[in-house]
């Protein structure tokens, strides 16, 4: 069977844009399965990223190449960080920028489990608080991504309906805070944003 790395390379080959659905299940440290959420994910070379949770709550994360915006409509809050600082979900962006894999991660084959070939990506620069991720591949591509944190809590993300190189509107990867939402974080250099509390 092809190694997981070979499947990653095949999946990322000539991939400059990607779109699909995800289901995310959080389990706590003693294995109790908590919440499952669903949404859509979109990626575009080199590091544009959109992660939109739709149920049971709404959250939108957009990485526009220089900043990462997180918008929680229920909480009427937008947090914005420089993209280099906030690369917590960077394992996904290797799909549209595979040259970064070996530069930014130590890659380890984990073998077969649950019918998938698994690869571990551990960030070389551990200062960035990025967690290591496990990527599970079938013969068609990436199926699952798992994060396990220091407390043993897990985030298991299953992907489906991948569309390779769709034409994605650039608006998917830009974000403008809606009127009335509080914008918090690194808003320097964003002229039109009204920082929190500003009248």
């Amino acid at each position, binding site marked *: 069977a092809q190694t997981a790395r070979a499947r990653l390379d095949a999946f990322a080959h000539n991939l400059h844009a990607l779109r699909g659905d995800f289901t*995310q299940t*959080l389990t*706590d*440290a003693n294995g109790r399965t*908590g*919440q499952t959420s669903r949404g859509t994910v979109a990626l575009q070379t080199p590091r544009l990223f959109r*992660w939109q*949770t739709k149920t*049971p*709550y709404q*959250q939108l*994360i957009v990485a526009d190449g220089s900043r990462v915006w*997180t918008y*929680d409509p*229920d*909480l*009427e*809050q937008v*947090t914005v960080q420089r993209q280099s600082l906030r690369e*917590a*979900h960077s394992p996904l962006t290797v799909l549209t920028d595979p040259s970064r894999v070996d530069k930014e991660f130590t890659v380890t084959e984990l073998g077969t489990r649950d019918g998938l070939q698994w690869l571990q990506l551990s960030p070389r620069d551990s200062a960035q*608080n*990025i*967690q290591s*991720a496990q990527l599970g591949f079938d013969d068609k591509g990436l199926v699952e991504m798992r*994060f396990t*944190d*220091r*407390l043993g*809590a*897990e*985030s298991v*993300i299953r992907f489906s309906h991948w569309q390779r190189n769709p034409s994605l509107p650039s608006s998917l990867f830009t974000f403008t805070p809606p009127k009335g939402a*509080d914008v*918090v*974080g690194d808003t320097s250099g964003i002229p039109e944003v009204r920082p*929190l*509390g500003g009248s």
Partner: protein
Amino acid sequence: CAPVRIKGDHAMLGAQQAREAKLSARNHWTIQARLAVTDGKHGGSGSLTWTQNGDRYDFTLRAPVTGRSFRLRGGPDGAELDGLDQGTLYGVDAEHLLARALGWRVPLQQLRYWVKGLRAPGGKAKLRFGENHLPSLLQQNGWNVEYRDWFAGSDPSVPRKVFASMGNYRVRVSIQRWSWFKR
């Protein structure tokens, strides 16, 4: 539309007292919610699971995508915060521990009551009501607690959206589910 802030009449205050009597006796509950905390400059948000077991609490926040967890547990005897890069931190008081470790101002002791739509013990509280005759604003110990939405159909009614603020500090909770259980 601007929120409604009616000065409670006799009936509204009476209903509030009845609700407070009923809910303050229920000390074993869990909320599944979204939490956002900010000091005006920095902030974050995540999925919150908060379990209150009498005076003991387990307050677990999960970050988006990676699901990285931060867990604050404890009771009257002290608090423990897990999940940070620097490992487990202990403190006598959960609020000080959160402020020291994460720089967050979260009035946990009082939030335990505010999240049920109740006035916290100690410290005068001012109440204003909405069109649904349930609290729409509660002011206590310098905090403004706005009740933006309610699970009005449940008996007794419990809040769905609680936005607390004091100056630039904001703690916002949007609740998906209330679960009540015996001991």
